[in-house]
């Protein structure tokens, strides 16, 4: 049995994606949820499936349910880092198909920017790493990037191109915070944090809330003229700490991506847009390789050619991504909301003409957890 086309996203909303004023993390979830449900005229009591992850709340489903007055019959607080919400989409589709819930709310909120200086993280330290003073999680990605350079000749200029492409997309997004272009030189002359990664190789630190609503494909068609079908899902994990990463330059995204594409009956070449976790320039480059958009080691030349920038062959992170739009601790929800926007044709100046099928890929920690979802406006080609 496959989940292909069994569930659909009917609503997606974002709130305060740079700086919030006077809202708590769960308050941001509440406002995003209110907006998402209003899109399709659902009442909060229609929500019977609750999916959430958080760095703020140890038992986030309880926190959200109490705050919003929800009484879910199915609850999932899977936390595998910032990509958790892509996992939640697969779990929600499975729960809906199994009849365990019918209207699934997936939500996230964070005040990471407002909390600046006291960043919230659930990352418990490995005793074998903590004494050596790594910057979490930047230094782990520094180790990964250094190895990618060694194995494949990837350059700092090529990594910088990822950030430059992200900014070019962000310039088309009126909600993105920095309305000025970025050059490779800007990235290279920003402060070095943990070699070879500069400050501008790293994502923003923002606030933000978001919510999406998933229901059965059948019910979705009654709720909206533009349901976004979940065609394929896959997840995979293979380590926790950088010392346990089996191969610094190839990740379990190879597995999650293949499973999602196989279930969908589509491949990388069929994707009209891609929404891939760019907490760091190197994370996006490696994931482009592991998801099959280029072969291993070819990420550098690929991004250097302008392929992922506006006008390129593969529109990636069209809202500006974590590097230039928003990254409130966990990015996954904002990959989903942008994919939905593209597929609905609601992406304004950055709309990919005729976008019908997109891939969303979330990761957690230093390329440790992976979840891939293939979404489409249509179940059949």
């Amino acid at each position, binding site marked *: 049995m496959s989940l292909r086309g069994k569930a659909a996203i009917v609503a997606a909303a974002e709130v305060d994606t740079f700086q919030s004023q006077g809202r708590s993390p769960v308050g941001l979830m509440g406002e995003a949820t209110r907006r998402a449900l209003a899109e399709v005229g659902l009442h909060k009591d229609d929500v019977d499936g609750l999916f959430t992850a958080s760095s703020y709340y140890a038992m986030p489903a309880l926190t959200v349910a109490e705050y919003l007055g929800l009484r879910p019959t199915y609850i999932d607080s899977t936390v595998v880092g910032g990509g958790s919400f892509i996992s939640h989409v697969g779990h929600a589709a499975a729960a809906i198909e199994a009849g365990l819930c019918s209207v699934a709310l997936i939500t996230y909120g964070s005040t990471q920017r407002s909390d600046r200086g006291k960043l919230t993280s659930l990352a418990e330290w490995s005793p074998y790493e*903590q*004494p*050596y*003073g790594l910057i979490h999680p930047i230094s782990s990605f520094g*180790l990964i990037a250094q190895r990618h350079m060694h194995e494949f000749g990837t350059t700092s200029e090529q990594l910088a191109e990822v950030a430059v492409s992200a900014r070019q997309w962000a310039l088309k997004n009126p909600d993105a915070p920095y309305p000025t272009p970025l050059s490779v030189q800007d990235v290279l002359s920003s*402060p070095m944090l943990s*070699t070879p990664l500069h400050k501008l190789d790293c994502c923003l630190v923002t606030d933000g809330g978001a919510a999406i609503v998933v229901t059965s494909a059948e019910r979705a068609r009654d709720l909206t003229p533009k349901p976004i079908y979940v065609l394929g899902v896959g997840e995979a994990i293979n380590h926790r700490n950088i*010392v346990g990463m089996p191969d610094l330059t190839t990740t379990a995204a190879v597995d999650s991506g293949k499973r999602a594409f196989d279930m969908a009956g589509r491949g990388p070449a069929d994707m009209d847009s891609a929404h891939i976790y760019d907490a760091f320039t190197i994370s996006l480059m490696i994931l482009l390789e592991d998801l099959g958009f280029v072969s291993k080691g070819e990420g550098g030349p690929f991004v250097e050619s302008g392929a992922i920038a506006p006008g390129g062959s593969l529109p990636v992170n069209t809202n500006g991504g974590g590097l230039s739009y928003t990254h409130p601790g966990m990015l996954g929800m904002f990959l989903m909301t942008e994919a939905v926007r593209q597929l609905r044709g609601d992406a304004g100046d950055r709309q990919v003409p005729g976008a019908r099928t997109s891939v969303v890929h979330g990761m957690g920690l230093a390329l440790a957890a992976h979840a891939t979802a293939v979404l489409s406006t249509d179940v059949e080609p």
Partner: protein
Amino acid sequence: MTDRPTPTPRGEENIYFEEARAHRLAFQQCESCGARVFYPRTVCPVCLSDRLSLRQAAGTGTVHSFTTLHRAGHPGLADRVPYTVVLVDLDEGVRVLADLVVSPEADVPWIGMPVQAVFDEVTPELTLPRFQATAGAR
């Protein structure tokens, strides 16, 4: 001055630090499947056997990757920047993370650089393995 971050090992995690106090770099070998395991565990991550025996690494290996921190990852290390953290493939086939002792041989670390473990007695309770470039590494 803020102290450097110190580990809080629990259960079998203590084995590694007990060994380090005796200037031994510990790993395990599974007596059922032969797997070499870092860090000390109660069961083997390859076959789940509980027959794991403690071994002492020679302490020699090569740098698998490195990152040089220009901003301290902890306030207690602020006076050390820039400092370099290395992932080292030990000759016994396990990978370990530690920092690199500054030395003329390692002012520019490189992947593949031969290193050897040294033991830094941070406090009477805590000894940390570190790596330094093997003499003549350049």
